[in-house]
């Protein structure tokens, strides 16, 4: 009997087929799984899951092995106990039988401590040093009681504070407490002045400043979205400017290194910015613009001039700002380190150096060394050098022109046919003379 027979008996429609018509028996031999009798298999058909199959798959399943515990299971006992410092409270808890019954109670008893210790004072000390017209001795005692109760949590103390229907602000409370602490530290004979000083510092409290700070801080909470947007924009601006300045500085350093061969001793930008990030805004830009024109000598400057004269101090004039130099140059004038003037002797032009030295030698002036390299001497020396240089230059020009004149004269007299080269040369030399 197959499943379709059963369905036929029970007057059910055939599986997967509508209508009562008997389906053609498909004689595909279905393999009967093992462990199940033929009749049963015929009854349940091939789509029902077989228990035998399920059992087979279960048997194949490997369970995790039971852990082999060496120790025996620990026993726990319900024990009555009294927490540390709580006589008369009988509680119960589970305790491992191998545990010391009181260990846990004691362990938690250790936490039964209070927070930071609050200063204590005696009535004598109060009368001597701690009297304050705005506080009575009772109220001070009340305050110290609260501080002890809430372990110096000033926020909570100020919240719970209510003495004779009156509240006090955190600043008032802190001020009173720290003032008392400072006075006590000062009056009590200290074993070590250093620790005393440290304590005094630790208890320092500036009420006015604290109030001001809180006022500013609370203003921050009332910023509107527009103000925040502005602040943000300014912040971005600062960042941009900072970056620009850094780039300028790098460029400038590069330039100085290639041109002059020394580090421009610019004041570190980081340092300058560190102090001024907040203040750096439009104001600064404006200030910078103001700085550009050289300010007229003020009274102060005149005074300092007299001083300089008296002490032989000579200041280098600040270089007038030119349009091409960066704005930084005006702000931080090129800084030259301290040096001996003698090391800064002007060097003659290299191409004319030999002739200049010769010339000076003729006149008996040493080029190597000045006996007295004072400012005046140096300036004179520089002028001499310049004059000598000019002389040498002039001599060279004269020689060339004379040479040219000679050749031209020879041409006219017909000894030498004119060449293109010489003519062009003469044109050049003429142009150069004219330019001068």
């Amino acid at each position, binding site marked *: 009997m197959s499943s379709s027979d059963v369905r036929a008996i029970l007057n059910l429609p055939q599986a997967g087929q509508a209508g009562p018509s008997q389906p053609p028996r498909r004689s595909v031999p279905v393999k009967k799984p093992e462990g199940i009798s033929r009749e049963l298999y015929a009854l349940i058909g091939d789509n029902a899951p077989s228990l035998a199959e399920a059992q087979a798959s279960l048997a194949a399943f490997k369970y995790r092995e039971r852990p082999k515990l060496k120790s025996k299971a620990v026993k726990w006992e319900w024990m009555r106990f009294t*927490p540390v410092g709580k006589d*008369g*409270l009988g*509680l119960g808890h589970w305790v491992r039988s191998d545990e010391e019954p009181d260990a846990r109670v004691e362990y*938690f008893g250790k936490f039964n401590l209070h927070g930071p210790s609050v200063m204590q004072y005696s009535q004598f000390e109060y009368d001597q040093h701690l009297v304050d017209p705005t506080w009575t001795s009772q109220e001070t005692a009340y305050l110290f009681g609260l501080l002890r109760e809430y372990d110096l*949590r000033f*926020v*909570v103390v100020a*919240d719970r504070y209510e003495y004779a229907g009156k509240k006090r602000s955190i600043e008032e409370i802190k001020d009173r407490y720290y003032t008392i602490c400072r006075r006590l530290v000062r009056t009590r004979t200290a074993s070590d002045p250093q620790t005393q000083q440290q304590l005094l510092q630790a208890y320092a409290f500036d009420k006015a400043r604290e109030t001001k700070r809180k006022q500013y801080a609370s203003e921050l909470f009332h910023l509107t979205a527009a103000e925040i947007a502005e602040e943000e924009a300014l912040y971005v601006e600062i960042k941009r400017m900072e970056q620009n300045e850094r780039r300028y500085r790098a460029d400038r350093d590069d330039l100085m290194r290639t041109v002059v061969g020394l580090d421009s001793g610019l004041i570190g930008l980081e340092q300058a910015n560190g102090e001024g990030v907040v203040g750096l805004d439009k104001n600064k830009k404006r200030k910078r613009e103001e700085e550009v024109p050289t300010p007229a000598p003020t009274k102060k400057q005149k005074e300092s001039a007299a001083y300089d004269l008296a002490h032989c101090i000579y200041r280098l004039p600040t270089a007038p700002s030119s349009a091409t130099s960066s704005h930084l140059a005006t702000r931080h004038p090129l800084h030259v380190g301290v040096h001996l003037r003698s090391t800064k002797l002007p060097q003659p032009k290299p191409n004319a150096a030999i002739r200049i030295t010769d010339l000076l030698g003729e006149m008996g002036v040493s080029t190597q060394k000045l006996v007295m390299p004072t400012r005046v001497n140096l300036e004179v020396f520089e002028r001499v050098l310049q004059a000598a240089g000019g002389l040498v230059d002039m001599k060279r020009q004269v020689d060339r022109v004379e040479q040219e004149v000679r050749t031209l004269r020879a041409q006219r007299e017909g000894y030498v046919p004119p060449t293109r080269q010489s003519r062009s040369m003469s044109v050049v030399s003429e142009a150069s003379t004219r330019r001068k």
Partner: protein
Amino acid sequence: MVYNGDEVSALVVDFGSHTTRAGYAGEDCPRVVCPSFYGYIDDPTPAAGSGSSALEGEDVNMDGDGPGANGAAAGVGSNGALNGGGKRKGRKYYVGDDGVGVWRAGMEVDNFMLDGVVHDAEPAANLLHHILHDRLSVDPTEHPLMLTEPAWNTAKSREILAEMVFEGEKMPAMYFGSAGVLSAFAAGKPTALVLDVGYNHSSAVPVVDGYALRAGTMRQPLGGSLLTSQLHHHFTNPTPTRSFPLSLLPRQLIAKRDPTPEPSLQPRPILRDDRAPHTTASWNLWAQNSVIEPWKEACAEVISTRGFDFQTAKDLPQSLYEFPDGYHQYFGEERFRFTEMLFDPKTYFNQSIEPPAPLRVTSTTEHSHSLKDLVPLHQLVHDSIMACDVDIRASLLQNIVVVGNTSLTRGLTERLDVELALLMPSQKIKIHSPTIPFEKKYAPWLGGSVLASLGTFHQLWVTKDEYEEHGMSIVHQRCK
């Protein structure tokens, strides 16, 4: 001792205006969650008692094990000290799951909570007795009890509860945990701003180092109860799209439902006419509210990004809901319109609808708003934070913990985030909202469960001896 836990099998009970939660400390979920509403029948003469028993009892409370199984009806005489004497002699209380939920002839319904605090000792004691003896089946003299209290709890209510615990149940020790602090603990934070949007109230409590600050504590009667009363008005009056009022019949009064084939048609269920004449108005209101509440929980949502307006309301997704009497409808804009009240009470709270009486006791003070001047939830949070010291505001803003069952409304925390960011654009705000609904639903209970199972907490219990020696002063001193 890895977690510094030391079980002393303490119990934790959290009395709420809507539900009371109770269980063992150290577990992560309360064992008992039952309504704080209770039923009572005055002066039950023997005749009336037996007469009504024919009517009661056949009704089946779907949530419970059936009436009688838990012995819900706590007799007056069963716990002596509190119930003996008084003008209510002869009043029979029905508390717990099978209290109000079961229809009884002539049974009135009331709530022992008022303004968030326990104000009626007798039914509260009955409920506690029911929880301890019938539900948890413990010997009260063996277990210390942690009770939660709102930050604005009164000395009177503390006295009632302490008397109930020590004298009524003879429990060895107790402690009052402030609900805000416990919710913060449940979220793992010693410093937090706890916004609890519950049944009668929404409240904001700043918690610093485990202490609730009184200065910043704010509350207002804007919660599930007010929402329900507005919805009640909406459902029991015809609307432009619905020509008939809804019956809001509870299943207790329906003999046979009439499933109408089409949505939005008026159903005609077969009523239990035998019950109608014996049903009290208070029970009826309670039952109708209990019909609305599941609707609210299933359908109501808060628009999370922008305000509600009628133009865009039509495009909002609709959802199908069926009431016990068989009425069903695709609900659209009303899913969003009423919850908008939480964030814009000026516009969406209709003052002309009679609000539930218990909400009217909250008056306007420095720390509370009355029904007349409700403020949006985000404003409540803002005011609470601004009342605190400047130095702690930032840490409060970054630890906003949202709890309470009405805060489970979809979209509420997201919307709160948006509104707070608009209100305080300069501040960094972080809302901590537990992802597990359990933690939100039972936050104060959970915090109590954590705290009461700590080994270091043993010191804080107020013992029976101490109470007998010092009276209430020791309670006020310890539970600060």
